[in-house]
């Protein structure tokens, strides 16, 4: 039973409450009515505002011509116009009874006041008061709402209602700042004595902005005779004193001298500074003792102003005081100012002082190595000194002289051998050796150094030196950039990185020229040998070391003496008798045949009989076979890199041109190469062996 009670008890808690549907309906109707009322009120207010604006616009259109008529009515017009004027005046009086019309008329006149000037404006002011619209403004002054009071003061001020001055000045010390400020401006605007009353009675602070606005109003006043503002230098209100000081300065009332000097001891630093500015501007020399007296107890800003004042009124007798400040004051700005004041009092009395620099001694102390190694250090060091010590001219002079000496030293110690440099740079171009650049470009450093010092002034002599060096460098660079036709077949990527710069350059260049004739660059080992020879041996040795010069041997075989070559690198065979072949040409009959068929002139070709060529070939091969190891065939690279079809084509050609190296190559291919290269190589091996055997037998029989 208890279980049932516990079970069903919670169920009773979550039963829905009974809702009175009638109440819900009542609330719904209530909110609907409220929302309807809300929208109705909004609609009515909006309609009212629109209707009011429309009325105002219409009233303005009606009133504007009337006001214009009032403004420009002249008594000397005809009778009809006068009658029209009187009628209009009666009409407007009737309209003034309507508050809306009054308001519109006030607005119109206030707007017109802004748009017109001269006599029209005066007439607007007069009409405003004549129509009694100022009474509305006076009524606003009695309002408890600050914005209405402020608006009333503004209207009366703008419409120049002079008799409102006594009513407005009551608000000068109003606790509400907006009204207070408005009243201050109105008092100063409406009457000349307004500023006096204001300065006499002002209790509250006068902001800087307010002071500026007041000063602007005073400036606008016509025929304004400013009062002696020194009377307010003793005011208890610091802002009044400050404003008076500014007015004294503005109107240059120098009769306030005693008061201004006395204010130097004022506790308020703003007042003190303002009086200092006045003393400075008015050049009160009588203030000097006071200035010196208060200097010690003044802040940095005041000290600067005191020094400014002393610069205007100071004499030679004050130099001791100022120089003491320049030497001892803690503030750098004050010290700097004191120095400038010294120059103001006695021009050129405080010149920059620095130790004279003995240029010759400085140059002697500087070793040439130091000049080269620490090219930028002196510049940076001197620049920092220049900033710290303010020795601009001396440093510039020192730099100029020092640089001149450095340049001369560099030129003397490292004379430029243009020819050697050019030739060595050719080598560098081939070798692309960055390490050697410093050695072969001794003048590049000079150029960089000059560019690094471009910010400094140079003497004419240095500029001439610079020009010479520049042109030399430019020529070198241009010669480097000139394309060398002999290098067209010479790839540079495989050249050795390290190069001996002591190599005779002539040999290198001439060896390079020979590359035009036979291109064997595809053989790494040949190239390395070639490079070694080219870079390490002079050209004479190279020519002498040539083991196989076909034409020479042909001539020897023919019993002709070999003629010395005038220019072994000339392309004209008649001049040389032989085209210079690189030593690696002897390793290849193929190269020989190419050389022969392509380059050798026809008459020389005829001079060598085909039989002789074969003999030469066999003799050469035998000689090489005896002396050298089989070596590597020039075709090997092709078989490593080329496709099968190319290899088959080569195998057809090798029996006709190959030698012992090719025998080894073919033997290797016949064993290791895949089909069909292997079978083709086997056939080529047979053919080549037969040809070489036949040649050997023939040579043997000939020798026997």
């Amino acid at each position, binding site marked *: 039973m208890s279980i049932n009670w516990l079970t069903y008890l919670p169920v009773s808690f979550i039963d829905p409450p009974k809702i009175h549907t009638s109440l819900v309906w009542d609330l719904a109707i209530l909110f609907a009515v409220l929302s309807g009322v809300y929208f109705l009120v909004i609609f009515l207010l909006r309609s009212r505002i629109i209707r009011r604006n429309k009325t105002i616009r219409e009233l303005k259109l009606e009133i*504007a011509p009337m006001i214009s008529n009032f403004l420009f009515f002249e008594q000397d017009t005809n009778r009809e116009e006068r009658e029209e004027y009187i009628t209009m005046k009666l009409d407007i009086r009737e309209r003034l009874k309507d508050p809306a019309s009054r308001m519109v008329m006030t607005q119109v006149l206030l*707007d017109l*006041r802004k*748009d*017109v*000037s*001269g*006599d029209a404006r005066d007439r607007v002011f007069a009409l405003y008061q004549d129509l009694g619209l100022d009474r509305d403004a006076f009524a606003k002054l009695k309002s408890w709402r600050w914005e209405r009071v402020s608006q009333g003061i503004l209207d009366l001020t703008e419409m120049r209602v002079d008799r409102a001055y006594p009513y407005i000045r009551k608000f000068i010390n109003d606790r509400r700042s907006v009204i207070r400020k408005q009243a201050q401006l109105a008092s100063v605007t409406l009457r000349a004595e307004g500023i006096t009353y204001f300065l006499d009675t002002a209790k509250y602070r006068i902001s800087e902005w307010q002071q500026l606005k007041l000063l602007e109003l005073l400036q606008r006043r016509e025929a304004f005779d400013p009062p002696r503002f020194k009377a307010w230098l003793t005011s208890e209100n610091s802002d009044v004193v400050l404003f008076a000081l500014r007015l004294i300065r503005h109107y240059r009332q120098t009769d306030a001298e005693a008061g201004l000097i006395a204010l130097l001891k004022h506790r308020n630093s703003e007042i003190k500074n303002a009086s200092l500015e006045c003393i400075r501007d008015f050049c009160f020399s009588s203030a000097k003792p006071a200035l010196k007296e208060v200097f010690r107890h003044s802040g940095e800003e005041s000290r600067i102003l005191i020094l400014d004042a002393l610069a205007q009124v100071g004499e030679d007798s004050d130099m001791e005081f100022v120089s003491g400040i320049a030497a001892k004051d803690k503030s750098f700005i004050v010290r700097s100012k004191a120095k400038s004041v010294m120059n103001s009092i006695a021009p050129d009395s405080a010149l920059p002082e620095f130790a004279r620099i003995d240029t010759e001694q400085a140059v002697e102390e500087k070793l040439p190595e130091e000049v080269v190694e620490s090219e930028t250090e002196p510049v940076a060091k001197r620049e920092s000194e220049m900033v710290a010590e303010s020795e601009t001219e001396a440093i510039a002079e020192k730099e100029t002289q020092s640089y001149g000496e450095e340049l001369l030293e560099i030129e003397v110690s490292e004379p430029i051998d243009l020819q050697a440099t050019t030739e060595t740079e050719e080598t560098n171009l081939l070798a692309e050796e960055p390490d050697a650049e410093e050695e072969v470009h001794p003048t590049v450093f000079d150029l960089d150094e000059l560019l690094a010092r471009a910010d400094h002034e140079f003497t004419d002599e240095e500029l001439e030196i610079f020009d010479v060096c520049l042109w030399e460098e430019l020529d070198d660079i241009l010669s480097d950039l000139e394309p060398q036709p002999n290098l067209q077949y010479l790839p540079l990527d495989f050249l050795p990185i390290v190069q001996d710069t002591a190599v005779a350059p002539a040999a290198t260049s001439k060896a390079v020229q020979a590359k035009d004739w036979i291109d064997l660059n595809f053989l790494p080992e040949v190239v390395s040998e070639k490079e070694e020879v080219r870079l390490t041996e002079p050209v004479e040795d190279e020519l002498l070391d040539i083991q196989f010069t076909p034409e020479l041997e042909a001539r020897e075989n023919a019993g002709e003496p070999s003629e010395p070559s005038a220019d072994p690198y000339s392309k004209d065979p008649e001049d040389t008798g032989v085209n210079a072949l690189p030593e690696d040409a002897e390793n290849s009959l193929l190269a020989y045949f190419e050389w022969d068929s392509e380059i050798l002139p026809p008459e020389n070709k005829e001079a060598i009989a085909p039989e002789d060529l074969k003999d030469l070939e066999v003799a050469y091969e035998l000689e090489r076979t005896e002396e050298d190891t089989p070596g590597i065939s020039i075709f090997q690279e092709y078989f490593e890199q080329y496709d099968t079809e190319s290899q088959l084509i080569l195998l057809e050609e090798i029996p006709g041109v190959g030698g012992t190296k090719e025998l080894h190559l073919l033997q290797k291919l016949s064993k290791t190469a895949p089909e069909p290269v292997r079978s083709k190589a086997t056939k080529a091996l047979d053919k080549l062996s037969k040809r070489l055997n036949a040649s050997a037998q023939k040579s043997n029989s000939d020798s026997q």
Partner: protein
Amino acid sequence: MDQKHILLAEDDEMLATLLKYRLEKAGFAVEVARDGREVREALKTNRPDILVCDIMMPYYTGIETVDYVRKELQDNLPIIMLSTAGNETNVLNAFELGADDFIAKPVSPSELVVRINRLLIKTRA
């Protein structure tokens, strides 16, 4: 003596009414245009003897109007510009485009009358 026709381009209704009244009182026939478009229409329909034009106007400013008169209409119509004081750049622009005279706001209606008369005499000469 012919009554001179003045086109007064001014968007401030009160000022336009006042100036119109004053100018009519001085013997001119005054047509008022409220914005730049009305000025252009008025210039096309009835060429005035002088144009008094405010610089700040809706649709087309006074400077654009001067440019329109000088370049598009190619008319040497005398033009006096009205502008608030301190708007020196606009005034200089207006003079560069061919305006003949300038009066700063707030305007003195009497001064405007004098300037118009002087400019008309100058133009006639």
